[in-house]
């Protein structure tokens, strides 16, 4: 079983290779490695020889107006062949519209019609990749009318129709709860244990204009105590899961990331 893992950036390849911490694993954004060759891919492949690596996608646009692009899935397939990832994940979101890419994880109106379309897209992606996906709950910033399902009910039904698993992003649950005025504890308690393949933790930041009334999923700071408490609550209920600490901006030295990883692993591994 994978323990606590870290987002991996190319500037930390050397440190990752040298690191001997047991059960450490790494996750990268798959799209950053959609290349024919060169030092970045070679670096990841060297790390892969020493540690398990998970591939996390941000560009499949599974809730998009069109099926996942064939060229995009071909890049995925090739990267999976090269890296043999331990986990493969994507988001309940869309990021392209009529062929134009909108590099963000845009929100879904959770209707029956959307559910069927997204289940079809997940099925197409899984068939092309030859792997089951773990689908992540995105961060919410908007109150949207017209939902026919709660997010967890929608994800559960998506898993039942497509065979995918779930990736619970605890920070996204926390940030969304604050932004939409929901109870984070009830949200986290709703995820069905049997479907959860992976957990994400990350830092967030207050909106520069609205402060703590609008939190931004910025991945630029250590995981805060409120999110860690929510994580402990989840793990107490569902048991241990591969847990990733994401850091995509304001990236500190590798030693600092590893220290945070060990701190969280230590609390996580203590039985409640």
């Amino acid at each position, binding site marked *: 079983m994978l323990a606590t893992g870290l987002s991996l950036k190319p500037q930390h390849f050397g440190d990752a290779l040298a690191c001997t911490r047991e059960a450490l694993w790494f996750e990268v954004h798959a799209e950053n490695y959609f290349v024919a*060759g060169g030092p970045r891919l070679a670096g990841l492949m060297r790390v892969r020889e020493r540690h398990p690596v998970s591939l996390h996608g941000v560009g499949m646009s599974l809730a998009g107006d069109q099926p996942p692009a064939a060229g995009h899935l071909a890049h995925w397939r090739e990267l999976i062949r090269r890296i043999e990832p331990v986990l493969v994940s994507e988001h309940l979101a869309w990021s392209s519209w009529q062929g134009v890419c909108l590099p963000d994880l845009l929100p879904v109106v959770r209707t029956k019609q959307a559910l069927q379309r997204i289940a079809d897209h997940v099925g197409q992606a899984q068939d092309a990749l030859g792997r089951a996906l773990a689908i992540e709950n995105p961060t919410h910033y908007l109150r949207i009318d017209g939902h026919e399902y709660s997010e967890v009910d929608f994800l559960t039904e998506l898993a039942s129709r497509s065979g995918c698993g779930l990736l619970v992003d605890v920070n996204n649950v926390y940030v969304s709860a604050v932004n939409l005025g929901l109870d984070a504890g009830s949200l986290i308690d709703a995820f069905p244990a049997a479907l959860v393949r992976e957990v994400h933790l990350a830092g967030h930041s207050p909106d520069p204009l609205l402060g703590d009334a609008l939190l931004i999923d910025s991945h630029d700071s250590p995981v805060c105590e409120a999110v860690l408490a929510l994580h402990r609550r989840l793990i107490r209920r569902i048991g241990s899961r591969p847990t990733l600490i994401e850091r995509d901006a304001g990236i500190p030295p590798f030693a600092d990331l590893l220290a945070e990883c060990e701190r969280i692993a230590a609390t996580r591994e203590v039985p409640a």
Partner: protein
Amino acid sequence: MNEFQRLFVQALFDPDAGGPLAGQPGLRVYRNTVMAGCLDALEANFPTVCQFVGSEWFRAAARIHVDQHPPLEPALMRYGRDFPAFIDGFAPAAEMPCLADLARADWMHLESLFASDDEPLPPSRVAGLDPPRLGALRLRPRASARWGWFGAAPIATLWQRHRAARQAGAETHLADVVWRAEGLLLVCDGEAVHDWLLERPAIAFLDACAAGGTLLDSTAAALAVDADCDLASLMRLLIHCGAFAAGDDGHSTSTGALAPESTQEKTA
């Protein structure tokens, strides 16, 4: 679902658009993230341009480019193919005529960095051949080899100076740069992209090789732009740079392909 997405995209690009989400501050978060993702990608892919004009100027120009040419694939490390041509036509850049070519050099670097890996041609492979066999040889540029002739400005020198300064975290010194035409060759050896300043005949030679020409064709192309060029030094330099691939490219003829030496012996 499509209607929601259509309205959402409209609201994303037009802050004054109405619709069901109008007025929610959360829209601004998406708007900022989408634009920041595109701008960060362009800044990462065109670091020399950014260094030359400064981040503020760069992002203001890049924002206009994003509106005109939004990304069409999610892998943003390949976003910006049209950016050099955009700069060509961007009026505020007119007083910096080298800017579009610096962007072309940055793009060459990006393509070199992500090209497939192959082995360089070992010098010994060519050294032992006698002139008739040499003439029929087809040298194939490496997958990561990118080169260009910049007739209007010393782009190779400017690009190299900026890059070196960036890596050293130092100021770029340009006072002694001689304003002349230059060629630039970039090759990735698997660890990093290396750069060389080339003269016109070497660029013509590489162009002819890439077009599938024999060594006879390539030397003729080099001599056509400079009848006095030193062909032996030119080839030594290009082989030293690792510009040529060791393997057979599959479309060369049996007599001309740079096949293993034993094959060369048989077919000669």
